[in-house]
């Protein structure tokens, strides 16, 4: 069974705070993704990567940075968090041979006060 692990699972910060969400996958997948989920919007793609050192911009990238340090690890960085970034964040991975089949983590709930 493919495994994607996110941390922290819950995070509370204040406006202007610095937040890093971590994601590790043990699937040996090349592709990794960060999504956010908000009521009424479904899941929206923030950034994705197809390998260590690579970063691609998703559909809602403003206010977010990301870094893929290894094949296993993908980080999402909020350097000046705002209340509009309060959301449920999901990390996912997929194999190069079938990138439509994503494996998701359990999610990280971020609250920006």
């Amino acid at each position, binding site marked *: 069974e493919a495994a994607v692990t996110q941390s922290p699972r819950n995070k509370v910060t204040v406006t202007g705070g610095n937040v890093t969400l971590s994601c590790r996958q043990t699937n040996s997948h090349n592709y990794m993704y960060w*999504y956010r989920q908000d009521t009424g919007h*479904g*899941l929206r*793609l923030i950034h994705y990567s*197809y390998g260590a050192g690579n970063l691609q911009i998703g559909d809602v990238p403003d206010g977010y940075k990301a870094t893929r340090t290894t094949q296993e690890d993908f980080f999402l960085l909020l350097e000046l968090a705002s209340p509009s970034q309060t959301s449920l964040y999901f990390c996912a991975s997929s194999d190069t041979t079938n990138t*439509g089949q994503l*494996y998701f983590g359990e999610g990280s709930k971020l609250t920006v006060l």
Partner: protein
Amino acid sequence: LAKTTQPPSMEAYEGQEVNVSCSHTNIATSEYIYWYRQVPHQGPQFIIQGYKDYVVNEVASLFISADRKLSTLSLPWVSLRDAAVYYCIVTGYMGYKLTFGTGTSLLVDP
């Protein structure tokens, strides 16, 4: 990427068969159809994928119309655990920007 249209919600009783439809009128010849489901407090989970005709696995079956503009996810004998949001996604086999809409929320009554 082809846009998809699903009913926002459905309701069924335990033990019934549920069919969730998805319209993708602009689907390209290179695109596949994927279905996911998401239960509260968890990430989406892949259910099934297909290109044409009929696909079945241990969880569900997927029927795709001859012109590929409509697909139907069939869940046999639903239980309370099948209550979830079901997403239909259309993307290329090597497409990496999956777009999740708001899906179909399935309510299952005992």
